[in-house]
């Protein structure tokens, strides 16, 4: 069972709240202060991606975040219920640096960043990232060392 579980309506305004909650739980779980900015940014990116996907495919369904203190690791799973595009999953494996900058510059326009770029940023931030796609949606699982691991 997750230490803390949050579901929220897929609105951009709620993404800030989600990342603040994740940062607070990470701190409580003993994640090093130096890593909290990474947690905040990575969770924010994952939630932003999920919100955008829900707004396109299923705006009535909530986005879910599960945060678990597993002793040596603090684990965050952001789950959506929208179908994954190939571009989305490509972003997770491309990495942000190199491919990412070209993709961002070519794709940035009034509609925003290219699909999948947020996942590429997460890949550059968190040492442990897994993106999985099932018939029920996409899950982004990220983890960071917690106090137990350091001590």
């Amino acid at each position, binding site marked *: 069972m997750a230490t803390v579980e949050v579901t929220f309506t897929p609105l951009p305004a709620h*993404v800030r709240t989600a990342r603040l909650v994740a940062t607070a739980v990470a701190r409580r779980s003993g994640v090093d202060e130096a890593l909290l900015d990474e947690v905040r940014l990575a969770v924010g990116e994952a939630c932003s991606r999920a919100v955008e996907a829900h707004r396109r495919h299923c705006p009535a369904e909530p986005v879910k975040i599960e945060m678990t203190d597993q002793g040596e690791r603090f684990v965050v799973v952001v789950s959506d219920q929208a179908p994954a595009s190939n571009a989305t999953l490509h972003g997770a494996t491309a990495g942000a640096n190199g491919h990412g900058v070209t993709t961002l510059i070519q794709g940035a326009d009034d509609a925003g960043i290219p699909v999948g770029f947020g996942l590429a940023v997460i890949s550059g931030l968190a040492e442990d990232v897994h993106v999985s796609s099932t018939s029920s949606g996409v899950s982004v699982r990220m983890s960071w060392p917690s106090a137990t691991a350091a001590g």
Partner: protein
Amino acid sequence: MTPCMALEDFVDLKLGHYNKDGIEVVDVEGEIDVYTAPRLRELLIDLVNKNNYQLVVNMEKVEFLDSTGLGVLVGGLKRVRAHDGSLDLVCTQERILKIFRITGLTKVFGIHETVDEAIAAKKLEK
């Protein structure tokens, strides 16, 4: 202050701009994310539509920047470049600079330590 109040008691995004030596300086304060980034995008588009093609975005008071914000800055850069202009940044905060390094965008933007330095660099370009 209760924890609940602390969560809500924040400056999400403040924007301002002024002209100095023919260069438009945009001051940004707060958080640039999927919720607030459209406001920065609108300002940059508005400035370009008013023939301001030499821009400096001062990010010294930015507390958070995500890929949506990066997309807005890159979109602004593309707009000014279409008019032979440029968009430089002022930023010394490591946590903000980190996302530019991760994405490789340090090679795309001129990043300076002060507004005066950014303006001086732009004058040299002319």
